[in-house]
């Protein structure tokens, strides 16, 4: 820290070169104030814009959610307190949507954790010649547009678009080759989750990779010398040492998976009970122009994210600054 402050001084070293050790107290606080001012001058614009583009809309959504308001009849706007919330919370469709969102979130994050960890191990252990190769391959889905991924999986599975997956699976006993994947909830969810997992695993595997890098290598060696099997090393040494990284990865991906939208919009548009919360909010406000109701769903979605984050941070004691080196 002192090094940082000292380095900061260099920024204005052309103006004054005070002797750090004998600096009088008054000057020190002047300097501190000047530094704080400079700090906020530099960081302020980014901070302000972040607040502006999120805080303002959510406050507006809170306000709009208290009105009965449709854009098709804007003059019938009426203040109705919490009746929108009453309508939504009493609607089975909302709870069905909440259920499907939670299901997708849990399954996606679990699958990603397993595949992502395997990928992290590959990137960590591969010899130099292969490492770049492995990293490139693993990273490809990260750069690809989610909508593109959704179409790729949709066309592969959908029999009405000439999907070939059914003919590939025809050897599976009991598999119906005319199966329409997008005609029922469970089969639609399989493809939706597959595409979501494919697209977002790179992110989680990179988070886990940086966790792996923090596991002390000599600890691993010591366990091996003592005769531990690879599985034991993994369970007793590696995993406990990367708990922080795993929790951070799970928290981030859970919050992101909870707002799943693109894949569902492209593949089913919410048909067959696959309408996740984000899609329900979108269809209500921008699809049907029911701004009051849609805003209320948006607020509930926001609250859900807050609650999930709260559970993780308080309940599982996730330290988001884990490993921070300041």
């Amino acid at each position: 820290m002192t090094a940082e402050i000292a380095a900061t001084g260099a920024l204005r070293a052309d103006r004054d070169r005070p002797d750090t050790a004998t600096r009088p107290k008054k000057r020190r606080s002047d300097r501190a104030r000047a530094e704080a001012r400079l700090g906020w001058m530099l960081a302020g614009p980014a901070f302000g814009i972040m607040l502006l583009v999120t805080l303002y809309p959510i406050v507006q959504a809170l306000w709009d959610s208290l009105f009965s308001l449709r854009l098709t009849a804007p003059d019938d706007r009426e203040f109705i307190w919490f009746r929108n919330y009453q309508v939504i919370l009493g609607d089975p469709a909302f709870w069905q949507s909440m259920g499907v969102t939670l299901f997708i979130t849990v399954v996606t994050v679990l699958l990603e954790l397993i595949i992502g960890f395997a990928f992290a191990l590959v990137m960590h252990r591969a010899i130099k010649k292969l490492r770049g190769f492995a990293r490139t391959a693993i990273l490809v889905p990260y750069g690809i547009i989610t909508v593109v991924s959704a179409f790729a999986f949709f066309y592969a599975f959908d029999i009405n678009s000439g999907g070939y997956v059914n003919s590939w699976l025809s050897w599976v006993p009991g598999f119906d080759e005319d199966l329409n994947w997008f005609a029922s909830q469970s089969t639609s969810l399989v493809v939706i989750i597959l595409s979501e997992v494919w697209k977002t695993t790179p992110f989680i595997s990179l988070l886990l990779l940086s966790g792996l890098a923090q596991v002390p290598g000599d600890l691993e060696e010591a366990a091996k010398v003592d005769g531990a099997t690879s599985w034991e090393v993994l369970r007793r040494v590696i995993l406990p040492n990367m708990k922080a990284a795993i929790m951070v990865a799970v928290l981030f991906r859970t919050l992101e998976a909870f707002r799943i939208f693109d894949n569902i919009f492209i593949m089913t548009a919410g048909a067959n009970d696959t309408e996740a919360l984000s899609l329900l909010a979108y269809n209500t406000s921008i699809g049907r122009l029911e701004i009051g109701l849609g805003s209320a769903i948006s607020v509930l979605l926001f609250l859900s994210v807050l609650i999930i984050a709260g559970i993780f941070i308080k309940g599982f004691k996730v330290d988001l600054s884990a490993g921070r080196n300041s």
Partner: protein
Amino acid sequence: MRAMTWPQRIMWLVIIAAVLVWSLFPVFSIAMTSFKTQAGLFSGTLLPEEWTWENYATILAPGGSAQDLFLPALRNSIGISLIATFIAVVLATLCAYAIARLDFPGKRIILTTALAVSVFPIVSIVTPLFNLWRVVGLYDTWLGLIIPYLSLTLPISIWTLAAFFRQIPWELEQAAQVDGATPFEAFRKTVVPLAAPGVFTTAIIAFFIAWNDFVYGISLTSTDAARPVPAALSFFTGASQFEAPTGAISAAAIVVTIPIVIVVVIFQRRIVSGLTQGAVKG
């Protein structure tokens, strides 16, 4: 490095092959679809029975039926994503510099806010913006997308850059000044070369995120004046009502994917280090 035994070599070959298939297969699959003829689309096979460029002609060639849908969208996506990335990286560089080098109250608040914004449900923001943008005339304009894109690109840029900047040995700058360089020279010759890779990597990551956006794209635009590629893809229709847009969508998907794959191949090492540092070490 110990020499590998043969079983180990084979194991690694299998592992790398599996990783390659998993990561590239969907891209390969949609690429194959993009080469199918209209009739061949329904063959139910992975590889086209008959290869054709006609889907690419549909979206790129003058007179192609989806050309006026795709090319404006491509222009919008590139322009809007680049501008949003540029603004985010400039603001985030200033912000991260302050966080890494200055001591001021509120540092933690800024980092926490960035974290909160990055997990904010976009759909919660989009309804009020949809309303407001219609009133103030930003609906269906570039600026109307650039502003909300900052909510996607700024937080990750701040975290990634702050992590990069913390690792720069700032003492070098002082040393250069002691050796007689002017403050500006010292900054330009010692700090800039060390910071530039971090800024560049952050720009790539931020661009990917803006480029990927779909929710803002479909909600805040209505015509080809501002509609970006992901949104446009979902609005493609066939040349006639009896033709599926499958081929055209696949070809468009490949056109927007190839540059990304090239960027990933060239800069994989930097992207990995940028993402891992920004995410956990932050």
